[in-house]
């Protein structure tokens, strides 16, 4: 059976790709993911904000309280150099490349155009096979219109594409007024792949402390439906690869993503929950289903249930309650 797939021009042995998560911060875990069947790995994100925050924080605390009391002119030793830029991350790419044979996709997270787009070039030089660009921000400014938000995404993508030759995917949030048009616009601006979707930290309220607690709950299968819809709609309509992300928890979920039209399925929560060995289970479950149904390759599956290919294209456009009413009737 041929499980291989092509994602942004990268030939992958199967469609199962661990998404950006803390799992990839450890080289041993990266190796274990390869052993369990991962066909490529998206590294954890390098955050633009984190880099500038770390620099400012370090500067603040190294000088905090200094030069104000004769006996304690400073409070910390001065190191010759601090690794505050992307150096540690670049080193991590190099180590990951040395450790495994599968493609390594570096992930870059930023919210504005700035010097950090330079980091993309450095990631390429460090050996990354592709980049995944994770751009999101919460558009809280009431004077910021949809078009302004959209343009930021397109500009950042264009700037990064300008820096590198390796393929670049862009990971999106589902909160666009015109998702399909936005996807098309990004593909036209040079995106080699779209990753649908990223997930946010979302605020919760702690009733004991009366504090807002930002938290990220691990996803589960039911969350797959949102990416499933948009993958199915975009498949064949945008000239780039598609990756489904959010809620993919089982071999069955992978099959659904592929049938909707994804080139790969990205997984994270399920691995955090069950361990990276779960990749092997998902692969074998998927294979068992394909064997039983006599599928020969992943390519056969891909897009077979997309909006274009399915019996009832309107189903992907309908709002849920309509479907429910119909079925009741």
């Amino acid at each position, binding site marked *: 059976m041929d499980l291989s797939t092509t994602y942004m021009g990268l030939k992958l042995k199967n469609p199962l790709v661990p998404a950006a998560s803390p799992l990839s911060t450890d080289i041993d875990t990266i190796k274990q993911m390869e052993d369990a069947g991962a066909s490529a790995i998206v590294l954890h994100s390098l955050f633009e904000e984190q880099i500038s925050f770390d620099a400012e924080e370090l500067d603040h605390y190294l000088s905090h*309280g200094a030069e104000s009391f004769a*006996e304690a002119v400073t409070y910390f*030793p001065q190191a010759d150099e601090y690794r505050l830029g992307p150096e540690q991350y670049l080193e991590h790419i190099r180590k990951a490349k040395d450790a495994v044979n599968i493609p390594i996709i570096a992930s870059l997270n930023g919210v504005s155009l700035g010097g950090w787009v330079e980091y993309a070039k450095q990631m390429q030089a460090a050996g990354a096979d592709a980049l995944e660009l994770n751009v999101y921000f919460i558009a809280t400014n009431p004077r910021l219109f949809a078009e302004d938000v959209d343009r930021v995404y397109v500009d950042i993508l264009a700037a990064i594409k300008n820096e590198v030759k390796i393929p670049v995917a862009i990971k999106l949030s589902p909160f666009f007024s015109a998702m399909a048009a936005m996807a098309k616009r990004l593909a036209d601006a040079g995106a080699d792949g779209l990753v649908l979707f990223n997930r946010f930290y979302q605020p919760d309220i702690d009733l004991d402390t009366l504090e807002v607690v930002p938290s990220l709950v691990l996803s589960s299968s039911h969350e797959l439906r949102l990416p499933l819809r948009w993958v199915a709609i975009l498949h064949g309509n945008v000239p780039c690869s598609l990756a489904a992300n959010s809620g993919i928890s089982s071999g069955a979920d992978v099959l659904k993503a592929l049938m909707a039209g994804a080139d790969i399925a990205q997984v994270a929560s399920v691995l955090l929950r069950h361990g990276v060995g779960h990749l092997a289970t998902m692969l074998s479950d998927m294979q068992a289903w394909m064997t039983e149904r006599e599928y020969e390759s992943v390519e056969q599956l891909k897009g077979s249930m997309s909006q274009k290919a399915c019996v009832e294209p309107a189903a992907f456009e309908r709002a849920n309650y309509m479907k429910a009413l119909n079925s009741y009737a």
Partner: protein
Amino acid sequence: MSTRRMVTIDGNQAAAHVAHALSEVIAIYPITPSSPMGEWSDEWSAAGRTNVWGTIPLIQEMQSEGGASAAVHGAAMSGALTTTFTASQGLLLMIPTMFKMAGELTPTVFHVTARTVATHALSIFGDHSDVMAVRSTGYALIASGSIQEVMDMALISHASSLESRLPFLHFFDGFRSSHEVQKIEELTYDDMRAMISEEAIAAHRSRSLTPDRPTLKGTAQNPDVFFQARETINPFYDKCPAVVQAVMDRFAKIVGRHYHLFDYVGAPDAERVIVLMGSGAEAAHETVDYLTAQGEKVGILKVRLYRPFSPKDFVAALPKTVKSIAVLDRTKEPGSDGEPLYKDVVTAMAQLLADGELGMPAMPRIVGGRYGLSSKEFSPAMVKAIFDSLRQSKPKNFFTIGITEDVTNSSLDVDYGFEIEADDVVRGMFFGLGADGTVGANKNSIKIIGEGTDDYAQGYFVYDSKKAGSMTVSHLRFGPRPIRSTYVINSANFVACHHWPFLEKFEILGSAAPGATFLINSPFPREETWNRLPRKVQQQIIDKKLKVHAIDGYHVAKETGMGGRINTIMQTCFFAISGVLPREEAIAKIKAAIKKTYEKKGEAVVKANWNAVDQALENMYEIKVPETATSTLEMPPLVSPEAPEFVRNVTAEMIGFRGDSLPTSKLSVDGTFPVGTTQWEKRNIAMEIPVWDPEVCIQCGKCSLVCPHAAIRMKVYDQKLLDGAPETFKSKKAIGKDFPDMVVTIQVAPEDCTGCGVCVEVCPAKNKQETRLKAINMEFQPPLRELERDNYNFFLKLPEADRSTVKLNTVKGSQFLQPLFEYSGACSGCGETPYVKLVSQLFGDRAIMSNATGCSSIYGGNLPTCPWTMNRDGRGPAWCNSLFEDNAEFGFGYRLTIEQQARFAAELATKLKTQIGAELVDAILSAEQHTEGEIRAQRERVAQLKQKISGNGSPEAHKLLEVADMLVNKSVWIIGGDGWAYDIGYGGLDHVLAQGRNVNVLVLDTEVYSNTGGQMSKATPRGAVAKFAAGGKPQAQKDLALMAMSYGSVYVAQVAMGANDAQTVKAFIEAEAYDGPSLIIAYSHCIAHGINMRGGLATQKQAVESGHFLLFRYNPDLAAKGENPLKLDCKRPSVPYSEFAYKQNRFKMLTKSMPEQAKALIEAAQRDVAARWAMYEHMAARPFAIGGDS
């Protein structure tokens, strides 16, 4: 030969540069002002810098200076090239080893920042009292006077020690030389290699102890041979001066600067000569140059090699025409008929005269004088005064200079108008707020000029005695010649005031020269700035014809993302208007310097600073000075007219930075000062202060408990007392059953609060409508100041709670008690002072305290004011700091007195039973004194007793009157930090704990030497970065509590107020109640942890939740009852160690400098936590029976 470069560095760095390059083993211990030499060595070794032989020197911190010198002794004895750095008390602790090393002719160099030895008071500043105390050890003593000399003499010392075999002590003046920044020529490794004799090294190694050719040293000798053996070393001492001179001559050939054992400067036919050593010689040199240019026949003789003292070389260096000599000593030897250098000079000249070798027509008149104790200024005006005195036929001998000594009238009069500063030297004075980065920016300016131009540069920095809201004064000189002005600027042609409130309080323009430029950081709009100046300042500006520029630095800093740091902005303004460099060039140089400084901290920081430079230029403006002063603002008196006389006449002078002019007669003879004087200081340093919302408040008392400065307080009182309260005074009915019909007020001291916000963070009550608001909220101080001042004064007059009715063992109850420790100079948000204050509330009325040197002795005892105070009965903590190392034993001494005198009093009372009355005596002798009520009753009984015998003339009655107060229980508190308890004082602490006597030890555990700037202690956690542990501390921290518990007879508690305040209060009460030794280890967050101090208590909570710091109480009284004495007061660790650690810069910075090491250490630390918890859990859970384990 590699070429030498010019560097702008301070004396510590200059000495360390040579010491590190020429050593294999460096044993260190922190002590101001020498610590930076050890810090540089540690940082350089951590970064892989090698010595001249290509290997990285090994740096080892020890537990005390005694330990450091002993390690140096052992290292040298076993063949290493070794060094150490110290000062003052540290040097004294090295004395026993120094006698040994000199007696054994063991080469080494001790680099010493000469600092005052503590006598009637501690002083961190510079004089030669420490160096003079080691004259008899046999060390060669060599002095440096300038930063260049520090580097040069360091090398000369290392070379000479190896060649002469004598150990050398190289000293330079604490702060004046150790901390002064100068542009100097840096010696290269080639220079050092050329200077050091490889044969001498080989010889040193061949003499070392080794089992491969064993020898015996350190014998015990008897009367038969000791004396003769002691005399064997004479030839080495005889030869030493010639060896040093030969080394100096070699140095001259290699480097070009030619030094001599004694260097004379001045007229060849001088009649009046001053002899001195150290940094004062630079000011004297400069003055002599000035005076000889005017034709005066004066000169100075600089002493370089002080021991072994060479009389012949001394006299040879003197001009033969000299008629009178003043020998200046920077030390005092009470009881001696003259200070040491004076006596050496007199002896040398008398000897040579007697031998007919003086070579002078007559014996000159020689007088001695003292100058510069504790870094007292020594300026050209004083040098001139001494020369003037030498003109007299009978010049004053044993004089003092630079002070008004009006008790025995030893001081010479000085004309302070005498100035010799050259016109082509730019002299800038910068008044900054400690936190605003002024000093750092000025150091940067010196580097810019020093390293980027041909000009010479000098910087000296003066700090005040407070850790929060302190004022810094930077003295910068730039000029075309090397700068010898080793004194602060008295005539500045540029003055900058970076913090507006200073203008309203202090004399800022007193040192401004006529026509000088004055730069102000003004928070007011352009058009308002002039009129906001106090009238006196305006008048000074007009009279001195100053050019005035201003900028709203805070605004620019805010707009450019610099936060509260205005350093770059003000520095830019200085360069733009001082004319020190052409403007464009200056700005380009600032930007380049910013890039160099901040590059390693990331591009974001560089850009933010660059932007600040541009914005500074945009926003600075010149103020047109009118012809007459227009302001109606008068500068208020520094202390209230209601303050006691001493505070008005003496303390206020010190507060106003005019302490230099206080005469001797105003000061106490034995170092005794009145308590309760911080209350008069009213520093007004908080921009925001807490405001109470009674509607939301639940009256828990936490805000009061955690306030580091006792600036938020709680009282419960009868509602009727509200009559006459100020209009805005707030109160609320007391919650709970304890105080029916009473009201509670929580009140802030608006002028004493430092604005840390810890109270707001800890407040658990939230406003129901708007949860961001609590029962305490921070608000802008200025509009509240007057109203809250009235409210606070009313509050203070309300009666204190009855100590016998409040529940002392609860947080709330404890906070109804008056704090007897208030408004200290501790850091804003300090983690230590809330514990100290709690002791003062619970036991202060009967407490006697010994306090180890460290932060707590500085905020507790640093002049001008005293935070310890007394209650309305005149009772309060009696406090004393003896030393760093002896604190436990010192406090233990109090207990011995108390026990002895209480017993004596009881014996006398029994003897006088019939006179006093049997009933009263029996009541006194059998009294329980556990509760506040019982103690009060005993006080009353003892008062009755005293009254009854006051008329009794018997000797017993007299004796009893002296000691009767000891019949009332006293509470002995021994307080100090972890540097004391874990390291330097551990031996003494251990002994005191083992004795079973009733003392209470409070360890304020910040896990680092906080006061000296964050050096590693044995309490420092694994993986934390500290000074002396630049690569992260590799070892786990010591478990002091466990060690104390091993006695079984010591009450031991670990507390962290931020994690469990109720447990803290309970532990303090139990510890004090325990009739034996108690040890409380209190986790104290600290500015040296690199945390947001406002959230310090949350850090404490995480320390406990992560298992880093366990809460428990070990009470031997429980063991006596057959119960397990150990009660764990915290839960199993629930937070990963990294979550606790990486919120603190001390841990996090290692992930940025040495990520792999950081990872390994944090993993090890996590394992430590698990192991510790498992052990304590087992110990607390095990069955326990009398006699130990069942």
